[in-house]
């Protein structure tokens, strides 16, 4: 670290043209904002799709005015067909998992703040960084283009289990061109994530400024670093899996389709493929992906919390070790998605054990947060409310993991709404709360203006109560045997559950509408918010030491900062108040762990 040659590796002159400044920019801050914009567009589309799905689940024959405009054949008389429901569901999940939960907490905030938090001028490979965003953008366009092909997007779910995903058009609407576009989009997305991860890892290891030892990195930087290591290995598995899937469609291969497959009374021209192979490849990526979505949120929440608690974490090293343990274990647990898949039942037991064990580092993270809250001088603002809400959601979604880690109980809960409730709380809502906490916290630095606190709090209350109202009942539905991915509840025993679905739909519409308050706040504050000072939260880390707000093109002006402390010097007595900034040579108190 802090070698001059290295520290200047990412240096490039400030652009002058509009295109190089705002479109094809090499500046990590612009790229971070581009990722945020993409995630915002994606989340609004994903949420809109979920509204349509929820309306249909509550009132199956409901005509939704204008629905036919979204699809050629999927909504005769504006009533959703079964296949269109599945297509919306698949797109909702794909958009949310890849283009929101991976993009916003990791790529958006990480791009903007990781280089600043390590004290660098930029990332070491700015061209790769620019490419990573634009490749991701292309991946999004490819995915969305599947709405416009003949029979629409794929209906196979975001997990795209073979052989349904590999047999082609004969599998149903969207299973031809729709699947190919889906797999192409995800393969391209993987390239973007690999380039991004490479930059994040190198930034953290090689670009730290003088005095910035690894242990002096803020927890948000640790979150992004650990996530980038997971991203590099997980997306490297998903990409070839998608390429093989595309080959099954376009090159006549049979990676995922076995012999003797009969569709519509016709033998399919395939032999020798394995359907379980897809599941192994997919979940080898898929489970780390859960942690790719949530670990940056853990880092962001920790960072927001220490600032607003005005005291350090009980131990930031233990938090880092626990997040690292989650990352390592995340590769050993993926088989719990496959307990009843037909794989060897001994494997189920083997996968069950690390899945149960992973609750230990998760519990350590939560207990460290709670133990740190003890004796805090907690400030309540939009950012800290969402950070605390994250903890509540992470607990609620985490405890249901106990059930799904056990193969014997999974017999009853697999593929039910219990699973849907579990992952929506633990990786969906919790990660979203992390994004919101980060937005309210960092917006002043990114745009030089404060967000409106009253609107922020309204947004928080509606989201917190609303998310519980939507996703807690999912668990009850699952216990009662309500199977997921049904567009209507044909089995008799599911009929009494329909009123609960109606309740969930109303809660989802309400909670979704509350998100528009956030979007309004974002745009209005961007132009009309109160001007922000350089360090409005009296925080210590390097992003609050930039010479201007927003930071200049090279982040720190002519000289890179020198770091004297860990970033948790809160609750001390200093010339500035109760904190000492990392760049201040002022003597720190005894709790310096670095």
């Amino acid at each position, binding site marked *: 670290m802090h070698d001059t040659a290295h520290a200047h590796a990412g240096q490039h002159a400030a652009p002058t043209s509009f295109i190089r400044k705002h479109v094809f920019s090499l500046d990590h801050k612009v790229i971070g904002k581009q990722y945020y914009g993409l995630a915002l567009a994606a989340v609004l589309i994903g949420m809109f799709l979920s509204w349509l799905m929820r309306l249909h689940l509550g009132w199956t024959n409901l005509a939704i005015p204008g629905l036919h405009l979204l699809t050629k054949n999927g909504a005769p008389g504006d009533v959703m067909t*079964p296949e269109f429901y*599945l297509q919306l569901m698949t797109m909702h999940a794909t958009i949310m998992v890849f283009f929101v939960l991976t993009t916003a907490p990791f790529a958006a905030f990480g791009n903007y703040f990781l280089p600043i938090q390590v004290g660098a001028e930029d990332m070491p490979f700015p061209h790769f960084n620019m490419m990573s965003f634009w490749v991701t953008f292309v991946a999004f366009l490819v995915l969305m283009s599947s709405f416009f092909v003949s029979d629409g997007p794929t209906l196979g779910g975001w997990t795209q*289990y*073979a*052989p*349904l995903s590999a047999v082609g058009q004969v*599998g149903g609407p969207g*299973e031809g061109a729709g699947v190919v576009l889906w797999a192409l989009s995800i393969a391209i997305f993987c390239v973007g994530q690999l380039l991004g991860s490479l930059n994040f890892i190198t930034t953290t290891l090689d670009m730290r400024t003088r005095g910035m030892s690894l242990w002096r990195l803020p927890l948000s930087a640790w979150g992004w670093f650990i996530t980038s290591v997971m991203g590099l290995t997980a997306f490297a598995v998903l990409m070839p899996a998608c390429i093989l899937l595309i080959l099954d469609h376009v090159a006549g291969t049979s990676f995922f389709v*076995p*012999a*003797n497959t*009969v*569709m519509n*009374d016709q033998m399919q021209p395939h032999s020798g493929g394995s*359907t379980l192979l897809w599941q192994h490849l997919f979940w080898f990526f898929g489970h780390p992906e859960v942690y790719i979505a949530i670990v940056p949120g853990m880092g962001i929440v920790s960072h927001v919390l220490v600032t607003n*608690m005005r*005291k350090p974490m*009980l*131990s930031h090293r233990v938090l880092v070790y626990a997040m690292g343990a989650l990352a390592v274990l995340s590769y050993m647990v993926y088989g719990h998605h496959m307990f*009843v898949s*037909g794989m060897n*039942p001994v494997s189920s037991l083997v996968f*069950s054990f690390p899945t*149960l064990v992973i609750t*230990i580092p998760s519990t*350590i993270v939560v*207990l*460290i947060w*709670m133990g740190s*809250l003890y004796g*805090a001088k*907690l400030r309540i603002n939009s950012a800290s409310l969402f950070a605390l809400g994250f*903890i509540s959601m992470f*607990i*609620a979604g985490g*405890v*249901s993991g*106990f*059930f799904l880690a*056990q*193969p*014997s*109980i*999974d*017999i*009853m809960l697999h*593929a039910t709404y219990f699973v849907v409730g579990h992952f929506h709380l633990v990786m969906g809502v919790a990660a979203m709360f992390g994004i919101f906490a980060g937005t309210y916290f960092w917006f002043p630095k990114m745009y030089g203006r404060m967000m409106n606190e009253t609107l922020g709090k309204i947004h928080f209350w509606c989201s917190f109560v609303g998310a*519980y109202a939507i996703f*807690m009942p999912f668990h*009850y539905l699952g*216990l*009662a*045997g309500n199977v997921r*991915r049904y567009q209507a*509840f*044909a*089995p*008799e*025993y599911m009929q009494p559950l329909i009123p609960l679905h109606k309740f969930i739909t109303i809660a989802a519409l309400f909670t979704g509408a509350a998100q528009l308050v956030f979007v309004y706040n974002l745009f209005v504050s961007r132009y009309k918010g109160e001007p922000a000072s350089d360090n409005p939260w009296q925080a210590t880390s390097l992003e609050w030491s930039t010479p201007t707000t927003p930071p200049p093109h090279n982040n720190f002006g002519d000289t890179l900062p020198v770091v004297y402390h860990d970033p948790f010097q*809160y609750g001390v007595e200093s010339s500035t108040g109760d904190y000492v900034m990392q760049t201040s040579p002022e003597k720190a108190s005894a709790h310096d762990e670095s």
Partner: protein
Amino acid sequence: MAKLFAVTIFVIAIVSAIPILRHTWWMAEDISTHGAPIDEQMSETMAEAGISFLASQFILGYFIWKFSNPKPGDKIKTFPGGAKAMVWAAFLLVGTEVLALGVFGVKAWANVYFTPPAANAVPVEVQAGQFAFYFRYPGPDGSFGPIHPDMISEANQNFYGLDTDHDADSKDDVVTAEMAVPVNREIHLIMHSKDVGHSFFVPELRVQQDFVPGMDLSVHFTATKIGRYEIVCTQLCGLGHYNMKAYLSVLSPEDFDAWMKKEKAMQ
């Protein structure tokens, strides 16, 4: 605001727990011989997860209540046990929970998957395809005739691709659209998919197993209560997935024989 937040957390935690405690929405009644340990495991896990959920939400709410909006002179305090106490707590509390659940869970799982079907179990074959289940009974000869995938034809109602003209074993096979089993007799269910992935789920039977195209799998179970239940597909298999279901009738031995005779006559 902090106090309101804390109260909201308390209320949400309690309201969330009520339907669970009252079993407002709960698992269907168990009608299998292997289900009791699964249900017991579910109850134990619910108790442990429920206590963890309530306790942590309450502590979180209490800390938010107590440690927010400090007065100007307040000093920060450190949790007496420090990080070590938290790490020990996590290892001891969750570790013990994990070990207990893991060990007992192995037993419940082994009951289902690690015991072979009894020699006198009634063999039944189930074939899944978009979007229906078909069942096959071997008839008096006790053996299933071979499947010829190229002869499978919904149009000709040859759902299994049987060649009754040439295969002697196939002649007495009975193919049905509903499943019936005699009560208190072990059933050996052989599972086969003709096209994509599907699943066989009967909540009352405590059985859920995916079909894997290209592989024949089997499960075995004994139904203990006469009645009519639903078999549903839980693996996304295409546009008709939601409607892929069949009925399972658990019958007395006499009724089962009568049903079999009737079905045979219809072949």
